[in-house]
């Protein structure tokens, strides 16, 4: 490990801690929330500022230790914020379909009528 100035170390450590903590809280939410639609919000902590802080820590560390700007971490931020929504959207819509199909009353009905009842894919 290359020696870096203390200010930088503090900054890196702090950012890393905040980022990890946010991610941790997000995952806590994932574990603690009662319904799927609530849980779906939890991981976004990690994918948004959880990731941003950790990656910022990385940028600072490598920029300071390598004496040149290391910003490729930005890519991760960009792509994570671009791709995570895709997963969540697809997943949420699938959950919606399944809940409707099974007649779980807690979800708004589809625009037109109700889907027929089907067995869940959990049984696969």
């Amino acid at each position, binding site marked *: 490990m290359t020696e870096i100035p203390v200010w930088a170390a503090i900054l890196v450590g702090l950012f890393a801690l905040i980022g990890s903590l946010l991610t941790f*809280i997000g995952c806590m939410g994932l574990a603690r929330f009662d319904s799927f639609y609530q849980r779906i919000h939890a991981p976004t902590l990690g994918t948004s500022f959880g990731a941003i802080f950790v990656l910022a820590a990385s940028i600072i560390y490598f920029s300071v230790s390598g004496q040149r700007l290391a910003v490729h971490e930005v890519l991760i931020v960009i792509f994570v914020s671009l791709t995570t929504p895709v997963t969540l959207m697809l997943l949420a819509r699938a959950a919606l379909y399944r809940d409707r199909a099974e007649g779980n009353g807690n*979800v708004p009905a589809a625009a037109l009528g109700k889907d027929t009842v089907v067995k869940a894919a959990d049984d696969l």
Partner: protein
Amino acid sequence: MMRQILPYPLLSLGMLILWLLLQQSLGLGQILLGSVVALFAGRALAALQPEQPRIRRPFKIIHLMGLVAVDVLWSNLAVARIVLQGRHRKQTAGFLLLPLELRDRSALAILACIITATPGSAWLEYDAVRGTVLIHVLDLVDDQEWIDTIKHRYERLLLEIFQ
């Protein structure tokens, strides 16, 4: 001719930037190589014939990004608080049906990303016929506030950018 070589100039530029970031270098060689790769990547995308987004005001994008960044940061803190409150908290989560004027698929995609990437709100289902979207909100105290935020802060900007 130009369209054939460079079907998506903005995208290709983005790919060049991506390349340079990946190489962590601004050397001329890398720029040349990156341009070749970016051109190729653009052609590859062109083969898939996606809908062409028409971006009228690209610089508004930066505005939008700043807006989103701030919102996301606050949302992070809000959701973190909710998580930490645990079960003592009153259940406030709920669904929200949102009518949209936006029709451009790319614009809708960006809006979906913004809403979903923001902790506390999630894009669930888009009804293309009616132009409505179902959103789930973790802390749904006031429906209208959410509708306003989304419509005024994001949709308006996106409409400006794309249409």
